[in-house]
């Protein structure tokens, strides 16, 4: 495909462009008029994309069939007949009603704010590093998904997070302290490792979400925020509430809570079906090491957890390990690794130090 065709496809893959062409009341009209004025190239591209789109529409229109009137009536008669018949038997029938209409309704909700995401340029995403976290450690880690796809991130406690495009989290590097705390902007899916002693808090611009261990999705886009729970139990607070005093909204699996900025309240509903964002296991790093140099193992951990690992490369140069790691916390992983090479480790806010005598040359 040549450059020009690519550019036209980009326009056609843009909801705002298509809406502008198809919807006479499109809110994007002004935007595109300005875009077109910006350059002669833009004018030509928009013109060609528009024409192509309208011809596809004409093409679709030609295969649209007008239903035979008699058939329409006949189908309706059948519907009415069935409704009346079922009304007679309704009391004797077991309840086995389908609720996906409601599900569809909730999905509409999900779509609405996803749609908003799309319209945000990464640059516009406000970085609300808020004051909610009182002690701000120097070793704060910010992780940001600047790619086009959902991306998997690992937290030092073993929890996993999928960040949607443009989403960001920040937390103190090792999540030390009595709470595990994460700040979030954008949309994310959390799979939190259970640890009742160290509750997990997520701070969004408007909400505080507290969990012990569970999986759920959080979406914060401008003033639309919502939490949808997949498994476990989640407590949601409004930010101006006192965390210890006021009652949180408790969410159970398949519930979704949405914050309405206008009313300053949380609305809870049920959803069924899948969430738009799930744990991205596809891009998880391979943690099965076979006869791997120690260096490789540490590099993998450094990237996974955004934590530097300090060790004397020379001392450990002969160390090769075979190890299979999975969803342990960073600390547990380090324990397993250091045990196999007869070393020890210490952790501080700036990273991990490995001490030991190294391995024998085999």
């Amino acid at each position, binding site marked *: 495909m040549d450059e020009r065709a690519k550019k036209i496809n980009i326009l056609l893959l843009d*909801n705002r462009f298509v809406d502008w062409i198809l919807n006479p009341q499109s809110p994007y009209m002004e935007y595109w008029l300005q875009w077109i004025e910006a350059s002669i190239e833009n004018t030509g591209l928009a013109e060609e994309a528009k024409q192509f789109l309208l011809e596809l529409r004409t093409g*679709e229109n030609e295969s649209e069939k007008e239903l035979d009137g008699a058939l329409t009536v006949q189908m309706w008669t059948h519907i009415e007949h069935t409704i009346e018949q079922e009304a007679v038997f309704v009391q004797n029938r077991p309840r086995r009603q389908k*609720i996906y*209409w409601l599900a569809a309704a909730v999905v509409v909700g999900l*779509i609405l704010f996803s*749609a908003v995401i799309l319209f945000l340029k990464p640059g516009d995403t406000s970085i609300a590093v808020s004051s909610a976290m009182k002690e701000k450690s120097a070793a704060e880690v910010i992780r940001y998904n600047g790619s086009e796809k959902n991306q998997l991130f690992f937290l030092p406690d073993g929890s996993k997070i999928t960040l949607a495009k443009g989403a960001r989290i920040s937390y103190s590097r090792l999540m030390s302290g009595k709470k595990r705390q994460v700040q979030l902007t954008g949309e994310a899916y959390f799979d939190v490792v259970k640890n009742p002693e160290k509750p997990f808090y997520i701070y969004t611009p408007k909400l505080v979400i507290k969990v012990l261990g569970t999986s759920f999705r959080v979406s914060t886009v401008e003033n639309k925020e919502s939490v949808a729970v997949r498994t476990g139990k989640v407590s949601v607070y409004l930010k101006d509430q006192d965390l210890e005093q006021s009652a949180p909204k408790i969410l159970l699996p398949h519930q979704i809570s949405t914050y309405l900025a206008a009313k300053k309240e949380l609305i809870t509903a049920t959803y069924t079906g899948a969430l738009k964002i799930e744990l991205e296991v596809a891009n998880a790093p391979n943690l099965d090491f076979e006869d791997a140099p120690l260096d490789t193992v540490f590099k993998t951990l450094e990237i996974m957890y955004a934590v530097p690992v300090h060790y004397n490369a020379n001392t450990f140069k002969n160390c090769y390990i075979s190890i299979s790691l999975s969803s342990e916390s960073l600390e547990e992983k380090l324990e397993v690794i250091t045990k196999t090479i007869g070393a020890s480790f210490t952790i501080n806010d700036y990273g991990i130090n490995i001490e030991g005598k190294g391995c024998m040359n085999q």
Partner: protein
Amino acid sequence: MIARTDLPMIWSRFKNGDRKALESIYKTYVNILVNYGLKITSDADLVKDCIQDLFVELWKSRQRLVDTTDPKFYLFRALRNKLSRALAQQSFVSEAEIQLSADSLVTGYIELEIAAKEQDLYTYHKVHQLLNKLPRRQHEVIYLRFYHNFSYETISSLMNMNYQSVLNLMSRALKTLRKGYQPITLQK
């Protein structure tokens, strides 16, 4: 047909048990539902049956429905779910698998064929032939996006695919279509 501005009112009348309101919703949407159904399967009887079931169920669950200004999305999604289930039962193969194999098989072939005919295809009347030669799901995306102005997010929910896959599907469709297409203004 119901005027767009009357839709919320009709919808709430239907929710309160007004059978006439259901009838007007039926009359407003039955045509586009049949057309959409035929994009998913060419089995017209199955489409007809599913639409009938859909309205019966709509009536039964009316009290639990939310208010809406545009029921089209509900109706499309429900119809698609019904058809998918019915088709999967018919073939004993999951819908996803069917789509996967059908898509990968047909695309390559279509592209070859279109390339060969590239010279002949220049009038816009041919556009709808091009469309009908697309693999089913590619055609469906084009139809939903360009004909019904559903956003890509809505389509991903409707078709039960993730957002990126919808964009990929659309890209493939556009690529194939553009190969066979020449703008009218360039006609000699």
